[in-house]
């Protein structure tokens, strides 16, 4: 284990250059060269992120949402992966061309990641305390005792009862929800600038999912870090994301603030996702409107818009020509030929609680959040 290099300066302590954002991803392209051909896993992803912000990345499996994050972290093995273009700039530093040694300082210290599966992300042969403290020893040069002490504090912080006892236990003695808490404690150990969470709640039950999301938000308020939340579930990002990027077949098809995505969306794929989710209605059941067909092969992408074969409104133009980004004044963009056609959007966009001017009272709202009684 390499000790912290004293000459190394944490990037997160350096100022963000004037006129720039904390993290800027510009036209990032990551292709995989496989036997079956070139897989266009990430094909022109751009976004910006500032401290304290939460970016939701939404898409179906295979849409390239995880690969984007892994590319930023430098975790894609190359080959078969190859960066075909674009840049990732973090506080003015180019992450794509950074040496592996420097990248190791960035990972965990400046940008930390939580994975989907809390069962396999922890090493079963080490005690929890050691795993949580490992980053601190690596990046901060903590001694064993200091690291263990801090690990205990961190476990307490993420709401694990009896942290003094539990630092000395092994992962198998923790439930799924508790392990995900441990993962969050590990990710937050070095007080990172950016926390990337890759489907952190997908493997968990709804009640535990709610706990974990609340915890992540609490931690963000405390530390002021940015969060990139990768998920397939629009519901999960509805109340936590400031900005949302919707991905389809390696492309960001729409990007905007949460309000813009949910209430003023200008892309038929986003509409399809919203319509696919069963509504919690108590009066009558509305039929679901699924998106027909299957996602395209990332090897042979359609010539025109990648979504055209499944899009109910596709025209000849859509099948022939790849749409350009249609950018609205405030940074909200949509990759659709008809994004600027107000009549089109008005006609086909799904009803929302805003357009109906009603907030469905699925759940009455005069209940305090409660903690369990200790009976």
């Amino acid at each position, binding site marked *: 284990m390499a000790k912290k290099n004293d000459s190394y300066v944490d990037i997160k302590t350096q100022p963000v250059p004037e006129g720039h954002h904390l993290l800027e991803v510009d036209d990032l392209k990551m292709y995989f060269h496989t036997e079956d051909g070139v897989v266009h896993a990430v094909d022109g992803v751009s976004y910006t992120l500032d401290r304290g912000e939460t970016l939701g990345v939404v898409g179906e499996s295979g849409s390239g949402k995880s690969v984007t994050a892994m590319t930023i972290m430098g975790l894609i093995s190359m080959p078969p992966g190859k960066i075909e273009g674009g840049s990732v700039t973090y506080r003015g530093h180019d992450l794509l061309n950074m040496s592996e040694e420097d990248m190791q300082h960035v990972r965990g210290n400046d940008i930390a990641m939580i994975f989907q599966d809390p069962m396999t992300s922890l090493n079963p042969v080490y005690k929890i305390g050691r795993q949580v403290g490992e980053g601190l020893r690596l990046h901060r040069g903590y001694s064993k005792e200091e690291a263990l002490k801090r690990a205990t504090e961190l476990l307490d912080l993420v709401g694990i009862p009896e942290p003094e006892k539990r630092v000395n236990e092994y992962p198998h003695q923790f439930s799924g929800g508790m392990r995900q808490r441990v993962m969050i404690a590990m990710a937050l150990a070095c007080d990172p600038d950016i926390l990337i969470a890759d489907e952190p709640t997908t493997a968990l039950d709804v009640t535990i999912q709610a706990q974990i999301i609340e915890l992540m938000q609490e931690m963000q308020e405390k530390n002021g870090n940015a969060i990139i939340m990768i998920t397939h579930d629009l519901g999960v990002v509805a109340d936590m994301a400031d900005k949302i990027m919707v991905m389809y077949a390696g492309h960001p098809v729409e990007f905007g603030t949460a309000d813009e995505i949910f209430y003023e969306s200008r892309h038929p794929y986003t509409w399809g996702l919203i319509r696919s989710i069963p509504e919690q209605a108590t009066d009558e059941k509305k039929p679901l409107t699924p998106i027909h067909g299957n996602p395209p092969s*990332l090897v042979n992408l359609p010539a025109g818009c990648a979504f055209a074969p499944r899009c109910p409104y596709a025209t000849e133009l859509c099948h022939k020509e790849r749409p350009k980004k249609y950018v609205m004044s405030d940074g909200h963009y949509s990759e659709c030929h008809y994004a600027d056609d107000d009549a089109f959007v008005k006609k086909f966009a799904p009803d929302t609680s805003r357009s109906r001017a009603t907030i469905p009272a699925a759940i009455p709202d005069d209940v305090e959040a409660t903690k369990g009684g200790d009976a």
Partner: protein
Amino acid sequence: MQYPLDLDTRADECAAAAEAPVNAEDSNPSRTLWGDAFKRLKKNRLAIFAIIWILFVVVVAATADLWVPQVLGAPNASDTATMVMNSRLAPSLQHPFGTDTLGRDVLSRVIYGARISLTVGIVATGISTIIGLVLGAIAAYYGGLWDTIIMRLADIFLAFPYTLFVIAMIAVIGNGIQNVFIAIGILGWPSIARVFRSAILSVKESDYVDAARSMGASDVRIIARHIFPNSVASIVVYATMNIGGAILTESALSFLGLGVIPPDPSWGTLIQEGQKFLQTEPWLMIMPGLAILTTVLAFTLLGDGLRDALDVKMKDA
């Protein structure tokens, strides 16, 4: 690591996915899993080398009677008249592997040795596999007491040093080629039974077996249609590798004088005869040694290739 693989699969799946009408006219729409496996195997160059080598050895050994005695001389022909003159000649065009003390052509003896070694490998493995399959299947399917008895017995067998066990058995039943078959075959079952048992157990727990049960399928149908086809792949792989192991054991036995009875040649006896002349005429030992090395290696490589090719999970992951 995991992500690219995932994507690869995904892309592959999508490519094969049936939605687009173009795919319906796929060049080979009804490829089977075994066909797919063969395709993957063909891409594995080492495995192809192994197959070619094994086929070559098999063909040469099988057709030996037709041409070897005429071209190289009979393997056991020892003519006192020419013996001295021909004794331990260096490799030449006429005797590519040289000759041995009794003036017999070494290549001829290696080829006839291949017959014995291959037969031992295949027959002994066949015996182990049959016993292993039956006992493994009983242990896995019926479980409980059967499982405990069979698997503890297997543990006991595996706890003895294998070669010593075989030697002891040969000592009891006497040497000779049939007894080598029997000894190696009978003592080889425990590992096959274990592999088959665990393969069955994992298949038995799978949803499609539950699905068949929920449809009302009989035990026989479940075993024949669902469990066997999905667990047999591991046995094919294991048995292939086992052939190499059996050839090695036979060589060891013959080397110790417990296997094939001279003058019949086997690779083990050839090495044993040749070792005395390692300093002066090394080819007497090196040539049969190479035969063992390449053949055993070929079976191992083929087994490796088969494992990769037959792994359906590589597609599903």
